[in-house]
């Protein structure tokens, strides 16, 4: 059987070409969009059939399934764009439960008038990450809404993956004395977005840490048993992740201020705006709870990986106070780290 080769007309879009409502009509323009933009990039045996659902072959029976929507503004920022974020986000949600993505779906909601060239760039960057991870976009959808009904582009991705760890990673596995490891610096993503959004007159090398974690975290999967739980600290930052861990539990978490890994430029933004790096989102980091005797091994493995060079111990699981996260400050005092309430507010005094 001959495999159809995709038409070669795509990439060379004229700058004036924009998304029209008819691109979402299901008619000729929709067809063109898929043939010229989607298939040439994401194209694979499963997707190219353009059937109502992707049919996947599974050899094992423990599956992970995750979905997330992406509405970031601005859509391009130092270190990434909405497309890269959308693919990394779903890959990471699978990776933290110990699953390798088998296939992901991708749905676009596009605003009428959105430049096709920009869409092309976003698809390019999605495909780049997907191919890096060896995972394919196997199904998808495109809708177009009237100008003003959406802000440029929204993307939803969902991913399905096979669990590779021998034991189940879960908050329930966490025990007293376990160590909390973070795979790198905190808050890089949120700080980079903030700078890009506010157009702050700050010159720095600050960039989002947006990255797929499947290979970094995959290197730990055969240690399962020693790895209790993993989560990527996105919205709400590490503070939210740790508070979710201790909620209604018979243990608490103690952090140490002097061991918080924060880049100087992120610290600067926080000082300027009154933010707490513990509340800021990362998009390429994971919080890992490990058995105390495995701490050194885990750190050793993580630090050998380019995405885990700055991995370090953030804190530990303690008996008191139950259900709370607290920080031991540099002065030797203690303070509660709570769930953030809403968005961080600017300082006006």
């Amino acid at each position, binding site marked *: 059987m001959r495999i159809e080769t995709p038409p070669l007309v795509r990439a060379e879009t004229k700058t004036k070409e924009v998304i029209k409502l008819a691109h979402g009509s299901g008619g000729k323009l929709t067809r063109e969009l898929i043939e010229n933009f989607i298939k040439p990039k994401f194209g694979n045996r499963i997707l190219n059939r353009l059937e109502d659902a992707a049919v996947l072959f599974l050899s094992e029976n423990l599956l992970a399934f995750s979905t997330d929507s992406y509405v970031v503004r601005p859509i391009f920022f130092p270190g990434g764009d909405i497309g890269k974020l959308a693919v990394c986000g779903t890959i990471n949600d699978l990776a933290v439960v110990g699953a390798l993505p088998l296939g992901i779906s991708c749905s676009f909601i596009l605003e009428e008038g959105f430049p096709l060239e920009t869409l092309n760039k976003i698809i390019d960057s999605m495909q780049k990450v997907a191919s890096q991870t060896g995972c394919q976009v196997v199904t998808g959808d495109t809708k177009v809404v009237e100008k003003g009904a959406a802000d440029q582009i929204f993307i939803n991705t969902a991913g399905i993956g096979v669990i590779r760890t021998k034991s189940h990673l879960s908050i329930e596995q966490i025990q007293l004395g376990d160590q909390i490891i973070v795979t790198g610096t905190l808050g890089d993503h949120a700080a980079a977005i903030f700078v890009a959004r506010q157009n702050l007159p700050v010159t720095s090398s600050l960039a989002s840490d947006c990255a797929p974690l499947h290979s970094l975290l995959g290197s730990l999967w055969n240690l399962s048993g020693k790895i209790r739980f993993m989560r990527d600290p996105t919205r709400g930052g590490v503070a939210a992740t740790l508070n979710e861990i201790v909620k209604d539990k018979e243990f608490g978490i103690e952090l140490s201020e002097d061991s918080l890994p924060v880049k100087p430029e992120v610290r600067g933004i926080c000082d300027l705006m009154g933010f707490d790096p513990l509340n800021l989102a990362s998009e390429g980091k994971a919080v890992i709870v490990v058995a105390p005797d495995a701490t050194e091994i885990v750190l050793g493995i993580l630090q050998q990986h380019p995405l885990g060079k700055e991995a370090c111990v953030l804190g530990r699981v303690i008996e008191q*106070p139950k259900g709370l996260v607290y920080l031991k400050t540099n002065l030797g005092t203690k*303070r509660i780290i709570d769930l953030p309430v809403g968005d961080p507010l600017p300082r006006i005094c």
Partner: protein
Amino acid sequence: MNQQEEKTKALIYCVKCLGGRLKENINFMEVCGTHTVAIYRAGIKQILCKKTRLISGPGCPVCVTPNEFVDKAVWYALQPKTVVATFGDMFKVPGSESSLAEAQAKGGQIQLVYSPLEAVGLAEKHPDLKVVFLGIGFETTAPLVAYAVLSARKSNLHNFLILSGHKTVPEALEKIAANPLLNLHGLILPGHVSCIIGRRPYDFLAQQYHIPGVISGFEPEDILESLCMLFKQINEGRCEVESQYRRAVPEAGNQKALEIIQEVFTRRDLEWRGLGVIPGSGLALREKYSNWDAEVVFPARINKPRQHRGCICGAVISGLKEPEECSLFGQTCRPEHPVGPCMVSSEGACGTHYLYQARGGFYED
């Protein structure tokens, strides 16, 4: 141990030693909300001996803004072709009936900004809209707002208006110093405000009211050093206004900033939540800038403001009560469902108290 760590350790030791030598119980007030946050975040109260009590003062701009101001802001937000531009802290502050956040849900137009100049830009971009900027804050924000008014005048922009609730710190401190119920032994004076007004305007505190003061920076070490300086004054029987924050605070203030405030604003009597009307403590736009004064061009029509039942923010702001003495604290009033402004603001005494201290049990003696 590096040099910084050694210095921190030495400061902690000094605070403990000097505090331990006190002969009687003493009350210090940290005037500024940013100091309140820094003190709680660093856990400085855990270092102080039992004889020393730190009281949060009125230096949180959102907290001292009375309901009347919020009511006016809400009224503006709900007018057709009008946008209220504000710093984020004001967004959730409840007024008599509604907050700006609730007004937005009802269709009111509110734009959060980080600088008054952003609001000027908004007015330039939308000539068909009136942009009302909420001028709150102390001497720190007043020069920025004054500059925004001058920019609007320069570009002949008449859809940019200021609702001025600006306040000045020394006048409020005089009211607090004169209150015998507070029994204050020392003041930690605001660093940022002092960058503008300098050290001298506080001299009356020591001279007339015999209360020592130290202008402080905002790092934990700055505050520890300021506490040491206050303890030393008390132990040596001195009473002066000193500056720990010499790296930023000029003796006579920032002349340029003071000039621009003087050019655009004039003094007036103004109401502070909890402290009542304080003579000469408010800044209103001068008559020659009345074209940019929302209260002149486009006065808000509001009902008589109401207070929240059971909320004791007023007493907390004036230092007479601790947040925990409020029956609503941590119950119906929490950061996610604030009743009073002290729980809303990131610098409010109640919010800070709740977030960093109330549930930890770190302070049980």
